[in-house]
């Protein structure tokens, strides 16, 4: 009777070092399971003689509990009905005998004679967390077949009936091979376990698959630790944000500044999430390096288009950074650099039910600033540190709690009397619950605090010493359900709520003698709430789509005053007609919007696919900045009755092709992105402590479009990629009066408009010990506003500037190379070391970082009189070699 279905449930598991729980016999375990899950188990006790089991197994979900026993005992388990399970030996001879013995009891035709070919469906889960694994490669040994799991961890194929050795491989996980016996349409569940090799030794396999063709997602780039590791180091450290700018569609500001621009959007349009909490200032020392300690990072995913509906808040992109939390044993990593040192510790605790990650960095050197060609920078000093921690507590197999904390702190003393200080504090707690194989949920409560202060002192005029403080307080709650009822649907449903509280500036006297009047800008408060649903639908093997809809409602709350301005006149103090006062938490203005997110994939053939996406995003928080790079003096601001939310709509189309057995990946993506209510500034806008800031801002519209070509080679001695992007980023105003117009309402290039971008990145393994890598980067010059006319006034030379962004800086290009020599290759040798020689800017290109008009230093030859001229500034104007010695033990 029990032969009618031979369970295909098998598992691939690497038995990890056992826990130290008191082990019990199978009888004890079985009764525990029966009590816990209210089922009946049938077995022959002699099959379990001498075997002991961790009683914790009983607390696993029933399916996994039985799988584990199957694995540990090398038995199979058959379900008679929903409450009765039978253990049987896992060898075919048994079945054959049993079948013969049972005779023709079963009137139904036996499944495995019915089919000559069968549909095999499989799901691959993370054995530890139960989460489905997308992008796992499934290959059949001795067969020319391979497949990849989809987003829900499912794969499907037609196979002739028979026995197969299934090989599963997935980046960061132990490879596993499992024999399956296909006798009919069957479903298999597989589990994979994380590999606990040091990340340096992990080979990327996700990149080698055809996941880029198969997944519905487009406009997405992923960097794992291995990718990051192969990039040239900049001053001794890998930098996540700088690395991301080497991917198509992402641009940087140059050598300095960690802000990055995605497809023509400003840096505030990127949502940088660390463990689902946004980071407001992502740089240390104004962009010398980024505020994210690379050692603790598991992976980075950047969405440029077709952003999934579960993400909102910002208009252009989402950068999702996940921290590592899976250490199987204590591991310590560290580095001693020229500017800073870092240390990272990961360890399991309490019988591996708790995982802890703690990391930190601290700076100790100012040499770089003192090399800068500027008297004020020479007299400056900077210091920073950051700390991050992640604590995962496995309450039981179904429930998990994760605590995350991050703190970064920057002090910057500019020219001896200006002190900048800024800090980011992030914290979150997340609860994961698995209801069953099909439904899971997670609830996150998070907070992100950004505080910035500046004080300026003057020993001559202590009564004018002042301090300015500004801050952002952000709290969010996210509740997401993942429901995968069958192989054709994977549904995300959830709600988000955000409370923003911004203090744009408090001016206060600094020191006892200061007579500065206290000035407090009105606090800004806003609530953003949203609900979303998305479904990753598989219509047919060729056609799948991710359909999502997000509804966002935002309320700007009091207390505060709102200025009303006369129509058809430029906003100014003179055109204020009325001021409206609002009480605390009174609603000043509502904004709401529907954000459809659609991604469609159509597989053309085994090697290629077409993808299409449409997305719309609303953004209610904007960065007010008078600089092209992010600076700590920038102020965030919430949408208000005078400043409508930024709305960004993007259409994208992509063609994806893999060839030479997935050795090469090629893609072309094109996009058109329109923006409404982009912030622009009137000439000479005053940003800091301006009560009437609304009067200095303009609402512009944006049009961005481009093509991105990408070719990647995944295997062989030479790996790397080439990417070429042609893009435009344009803005225009539609002001009625001249003051509200930029360039008389004509279309003009935004600061992010760098049409041509070419990246060549290669790693070449010369021999087992020697590795060579190089990165070449070419960009069109950044648009700039340059002086066109000059005239004399009061014996001073004054200038008249051109239309905004009328000119361009010269093109940017740079070549970086590095060569690495591994001293030890033997696996068992504890002490491992390698030498890396890297050279940045090999051919000494003088790339203009910026062009500006300024006073010259009064020099002897100029009789100590100041003059004013146009200058260009280089950061790196000759080759910069660095030799690094790495060792581990």
């Amino acid at each position, binding site marked *: 009777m029990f032969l009618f279905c031979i369970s295909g449930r098998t598992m691939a598991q690497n038995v990890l070092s056992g826990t130290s729980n008191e082990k019990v016999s199978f009888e004890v375990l079985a009764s525990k399971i029966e009590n816990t899950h209210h089922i009946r188990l049938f077995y022959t006790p002699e099959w379990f003689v001498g075997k002991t089991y961790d009683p914790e197994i009983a607390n696993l979900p029933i399916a996994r509990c039985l799988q584990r026993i199957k694995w540990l005992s090398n038995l199979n388990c058959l379900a008679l009905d929903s409450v009765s399970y039978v253990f049987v030996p896992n060898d075919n001879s048994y079945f054959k005998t049993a079948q013969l013995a049972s005779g023709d009891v079963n009137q139904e035709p036996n499944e495995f004679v019915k089919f000559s070919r069968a549909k095999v469906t499989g799901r691959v889960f993370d054995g530890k967390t139960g989460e489905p694994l997308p992008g796992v490669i499934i290959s059949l040994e001795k067969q020319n077949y391979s497949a990849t799991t989809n987003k829900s961890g499912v794969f499907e194929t037609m196979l002739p009936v028979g026995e197969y050795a299934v090989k599963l491989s997935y980046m960061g996980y132990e490879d596993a091979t499992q024999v399956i016996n296909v006798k009919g349409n069957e479903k298999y569940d597989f589990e994979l376990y994380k590999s606990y090799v040091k990340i340096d030794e992990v080979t990327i396999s996700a990149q080698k698959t055809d996941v880029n063709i198969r997944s519905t997602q487009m406009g997405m780039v992923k960097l794992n630790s291995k990718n990051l590791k192969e990039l040239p180091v900049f001053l*001794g450290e890998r930098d996540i944000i700088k690395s991301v700018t080497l991917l198509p569609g992402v641009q940087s500001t140059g050598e*300095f500044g960690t802000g990055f621009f995605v497809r023509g959007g400003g840096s505030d349009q990127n949502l940088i999430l660390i463990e689902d909490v946004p980071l407001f200032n992502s740089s240390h020392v104004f962009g010398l390096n980024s505020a994210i300690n690379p050692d603790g990072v598991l992976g980075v995913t950047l969405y440029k288009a077709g952003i999934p509906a579960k993400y909102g808040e910002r208009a252009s992109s989402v950068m999702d950074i996940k921290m590592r939390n899976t250490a199987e*044993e204590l*591991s310590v*990593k*560290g*580095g001693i650099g020229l500017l800073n040192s870092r240390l990272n510790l990961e360890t399991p605790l309490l019988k591996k039910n708790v995982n802890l990650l703690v990391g930190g960095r601290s700076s100790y050197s100012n040499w770089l600033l003192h*090399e800068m060609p500027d*008297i004020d*920078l020479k007299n400056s000093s900077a210091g920073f540190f950051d700390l991050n921690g992640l604590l995962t507590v496995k309450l039981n197999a179904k429930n998990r709690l994760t605590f995350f904390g991050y703190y970064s702190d920057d002090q910057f003393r500019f020219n001896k009397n200006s002190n900048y200080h800024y800090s980011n504090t992030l914290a979150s707690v997340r609860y994961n619950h698995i209801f069953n194989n099909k439904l899971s949920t997670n609830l996150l409560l998070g907070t992100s605090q950004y505080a910035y202060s500046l004080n300026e002192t003057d020993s*001559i*005029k202590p009564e004018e010493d*002042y301090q300015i403080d500004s801050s952002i307080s952000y709290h969010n709650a996210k509740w997401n359900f993942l429901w995968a009822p069958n192989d054709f649907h994977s549904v995300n449903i959830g709600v988000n709520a955000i409370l923003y509280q911004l203090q744009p500036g408090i001016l206060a006297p600094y020191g006892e003698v200061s*007579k*500065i*009047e206290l*000035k407090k800008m009105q606090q800004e408060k806003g609530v953003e709430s949203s609900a979303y649903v998305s479904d990753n639908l598989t219509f047919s093997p060729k056609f799948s789509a991710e359909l999502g809809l997000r509804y966002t409602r935002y309320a700007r709350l009091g207390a505060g005053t709102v200025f009303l301005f006369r129509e058809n006149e430029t906003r100014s103090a003179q055109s204020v007609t009325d001021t409206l006062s609002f009480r605390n938490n009174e609603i000043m203005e509502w904004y709401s919007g529907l954000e459809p997110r659609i991604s469609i994939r159509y597989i053309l053939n085994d090697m290629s696919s077409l993808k299409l996406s449409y997305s719309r995003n609303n953004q209610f928080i904007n960065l007010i900045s008078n*600089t092209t*790079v992010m*600076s700590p003096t920038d102020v965030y601001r919430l949408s208000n009755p005078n400043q409508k939310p930024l709305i960004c709509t993007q259409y994208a189309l992509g063609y994806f092709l893999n060839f030479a057995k997935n050795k090469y990946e090629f893609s072309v993506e094109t996009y058109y992105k329109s923006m409404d209510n982009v912030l622009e500034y009137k*000439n*000479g806008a005053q940003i800091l402590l301006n009560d009437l800031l609304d009067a200095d801002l303009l609402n512009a519209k944006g049009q961005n479009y481009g093509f991105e070509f990408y070719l990647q080679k995944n295997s062989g001695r030479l790996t790397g990629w080439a990417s070429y992007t042609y893009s435009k980023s344009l803005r225009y105003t539609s002001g009625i009066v001249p003051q509200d117009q930029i360039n008389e309402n004509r279309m003009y290039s935004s600061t992010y408009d760098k049409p041509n971008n070419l990246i060549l990145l290669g790693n070449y393994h010369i021999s087992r010990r020697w590795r060579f890598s190089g990165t070449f980067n070419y960009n069109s010059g950044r648009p700039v*506003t340059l*002086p*066109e*006319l*000059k*005239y*004399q*006034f*009061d014996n001073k030379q*004054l*200038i008249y*500037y*051109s239309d905004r962004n009328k*000119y361009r800086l010269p093109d940017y290009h740079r070549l970086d190379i590095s060569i690495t020599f591994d001293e030890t290759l033997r696996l068992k040798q504890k002490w491992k070391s390698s030498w890396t020689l890297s050279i940045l800017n090999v051919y000494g290109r003088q790339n203009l*970082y*910026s062009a*500006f008009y300024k*006073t010259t230093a*009064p*020099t002897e030859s100029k009789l*100590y009189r*100041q003059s*004013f001229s*146009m*200058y*260009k*500034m*280089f*950061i790196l*104007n000759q080759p*910069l*070699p660095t*030799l*690094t*010695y*790495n*060792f*581990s033990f």
Partner: protein
Amino acid sequence: MKKLNYIGLFLITAMLWYGCTELYEPQTESQLDALVVEGLVTNEAGPFTVKLSRAVAYNSTTLRKPVAGATLLIKDNKGQSFSLKEKDSGSYQTPENFLAVIGNFYSLHIKTREGDTFESNPQELLPVQKYDSIHGFLSQKTSLDASNSTRVVDGINLLADLPAAVDQASMPYSRFKSSIMLQYNYYWPFTENDDWVTYLFAWNTYNIYDIENLTGTKYNTTGALKNHVLGFIPINSFDYGIGILSISYYYLTINQYTLNLESYRYYEAMNKQLTSNARIFDPITSQIYGNVKCINNPRKQVFGMFEVSSVHKSAYLTTFNTVSKFVKFTGVPYLNISANGKAKMKIINPSKDFGTKGPPPPIPESEDVTPSWWHHK
């Protein structure tokens, strides 16, 4: 449990990091007929000059292109109108009978030879303000020299205390224009010559503040404005580039202009442009808008300012001692003398063949040829 440590250690990095700035001369295109107006009318007796010129291309080596042959009128709010006369090319002077009265409004009207008409907004002449006192102390200032290394200059920090305003709103703005005139003398030739030695009395004038010196701090303060920085006076002659010479007198003049709001905003914008040391932060370029507009073609660019401000002028002799750290300012009459000049020579034993270009005019040995104002007594 296996313990794994990973330490990346930097051993050597060649410290060849040279960020640097260089002069940049980008190719730009420009409309070349923008008019520049530079006019100042004060409460003092005239005449006052209004200069007209045209802006030049940024890359041009020409500094000023005067605009000659224009017709200029200054009108007040009492219905009076004064016509200006062109003295030099592009330089127009107010008539004898023009006297600006505190409280009146004045506007400038221009018609160029090409037929374009320009007009300034009416400007109010505000009452004179005077600072309470000045004081100074010995200090040092660092700057970069040509080879990009720091250099320390010794000098005097000059400060002024200003009276308390009745309230913030009514506090008028001031613009200080302070300069130091160095009076020095020297021998010529430098080697002693029994036959003849020449004494030269020379003076050079320097502004002691690089940009426009405006009151009204960055942020408001309550009470009197103490220690407003007027400028920095280097004390060593080589810091002025006049060689190793001893300075006889430091003659300091301070002009305090009381500005109306429009003039203040103009100078503020001008300072923003002059101090835009973009560096790593690269701010939005600041455009300066004046108070003159083209009437017949509003799209036409006009630069500069017609300023109407009252002025208070004062002068001091500055003495100091670097050992006892003592600085003193002695009030002396305000002189209207040319900014730079060389005074008469005193010749002892005039020789027959003085110099190579023939003898200088003979001056009796006994006559004191020092300029009459030299000692400021």
